[in-house]
């Protein structure tokens, strides 16, 4: 920050109240999360004795019980599998399409772009009935293939929009040079577009992963088999079943929240960048 721009802001003395105010707001976010973690590490008896106090003893029992007996471990793995598969497919399809729309001549490019942009505006709840019926007709209800396909379809429009925008920044000279050297489509895609677009691709990967990991409605209606259930529906039913056992539910909350929180810790740069572009979503 240069001096001149500081002069148009508040004086350092006036900043102190702001800082303290912001700390208070931050506390309203941090404290509930801290409370969840602290509660998850104690027994229900201990919690009911004194919810706000220091636990008498710390225990991992809630986590072990959830993970092994209530199917949370399996659901966690199922969610991981479905999310990773969906994100990989989205990245492959979206970068191919994005590269083509950004840099190559395409028949009916305008038509494709219009389709992708206009379906982005469709509100989610409108699609659940027809998608369910289409998948039922194809015999894909109760099967990960159907669920993954839905995640890919709903994730793709934004992913294509985002990668088209990002890949436009790749200099034409580089692509031209590659063409002169005899590199074909896939060679250029892999050796030039992919490395130059790494940051955009990472941003997309993080955003799409968060979206699929946190998704509730399709994972709820498309997967009925309890062994195949994903994490969010499993957590929702645990929350309903164990109303009076808050430590147990809290452990489930932390297991589910852990993955997004880790991503925010290590990839906040990508998340912030992606959301600025995602403004149009």
């Amino acid at each position, binding site marked *: 920050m240069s001096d001149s721009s500081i002069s*148009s802001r*508040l004086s350092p003395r*006036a900043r102190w109240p702001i*800082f303290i105010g*912001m700390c208070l*707001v*931050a506390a*309203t*976010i*941090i404290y509930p999360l801290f409370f969840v973690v602290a509660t998850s590490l104690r027994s229900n008896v201990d919690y009911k004795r004194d919810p706000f106090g220091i636990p008498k003893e710390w225990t991992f029992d809630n986590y072990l019980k959830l993970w092994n007996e209530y199917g949370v471990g399996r659901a966690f793995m199922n969610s991981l599998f479905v999310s990773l598969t969906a994100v990989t497919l989205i990245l492959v*399809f979206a970068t*191919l*399409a994005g*590269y*083509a729309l950004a840099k*190559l*001549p*395409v*028949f009916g*490019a305008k038509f*494709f772009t219009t*389709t*992708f942009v206009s*379906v982005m505006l*469709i*509100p*989610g*709840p*409108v*699609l*659940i*009935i*027809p*998608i369910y*019926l*289409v998948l039922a007709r194809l015999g894909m209800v109760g099967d990960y293939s159907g669920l993954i*396909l839905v995640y890919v*379809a*709903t994730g793709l429009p934004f992913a294509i929009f985002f990668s088209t925008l990002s890949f436009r920044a790749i200099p034409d000279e580089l692509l031209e040079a590659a063409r002169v050297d005899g590199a074909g489509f896939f060679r250029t895609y892999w050796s030039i577009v992919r490395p130059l677009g790494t940051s955009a691709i990472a941003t997309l990967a993080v955003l799409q992963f968060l979206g699929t990991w*946190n998704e*509730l409605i399709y994972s*709820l209606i498309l997967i009925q088999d309890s062994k195949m259930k994903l994490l*969010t529906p499993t*957590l*929702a039913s645990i*929350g309903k079943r164990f109303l*009076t056992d*808050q430590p147990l539910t*809290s452990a489930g909350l932390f297991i*589910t*929240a852990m993955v*997004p*929180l880790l991503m*925010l810790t290590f990839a*906040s740069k990508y*998340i*912030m960048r992606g*959301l*600025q572009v995602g*403004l149009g979503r």
Partner: protein
Amino acid sequence: MMRQSKLIGTLAVLPSFIIVAGFMAFPIIFVLFISLTKTNGLTFEWLWFKNYLELFADPIVHEVFLNNFKFVISVPLVIFAALVSAVLLFEQFKGWKFFRVIFFLPSVLSVVVIGLIFKNAFGYYGSVNQFLGLFGNEPKQFFINSNYSIFIIILALVWSGFGYQSLLLLAGLTSINPAVFEAAAIDGAGWWRRLWSITLPNIRRVLGFVFIINFIYTFSSLFGFIFVITAGGPLYETTTIDYLVYLRAFSSSNLGSGAALAVVLYFFIGLLTLWQSRVFKLQMED
């Protein structure tokens, strides 16, 4: 050569297009068809507009629509909280980047997680009751009263939503030319005066955008919160349109009725979007 590369380019777009057309574009047409029939998913009986007429006459639908409008109270609250934090973050005091990430934190969590945090906190054995108990109050069953329930869901919406919105507003603030602020400071305009005459007018487009996406959000994306926190109850008192679509779709024998409701929602949101571009004269980025 040109023709060949055009073919390759088209082939690269095609897989994405087929998936999006099959699972987003086609379903939109299909839902229109379903809404004009009585169906269990296997047989379709053509009804013309009977489902719609029944919907418009259905007192539950009226009640649910009204419920959605109650949730609209969350919109100014979220925006106010977001605006205050954006304006303060824009001062770029020490550690503002850290605060930005903290405020954003609830946005990466699943609605199931956020919903259960609030359901637990306001539950009979929850921390709110325990806290009120410290002052000698009897524990309350908050969720048997729909006014409390709606208040709690609105609180959850504000808590989880303001961080993301403040990021959007902050992006708007950052794009104001700093010279404008400096000129005003030189002319002797104080901080409040600058806030009122420069900062706010300059981000009114972003504000308009944030306003409308929040408005649309309260009509289309409350499913998770409702499902986890109240399951729409007591009776239909906290049911929203998107939750009713789910209820009608998966617990009644006529999918057509749910589809008609979805179509009405679609057109309603379409109108909102049109209104957005009219009133706020926003240009979507291409």
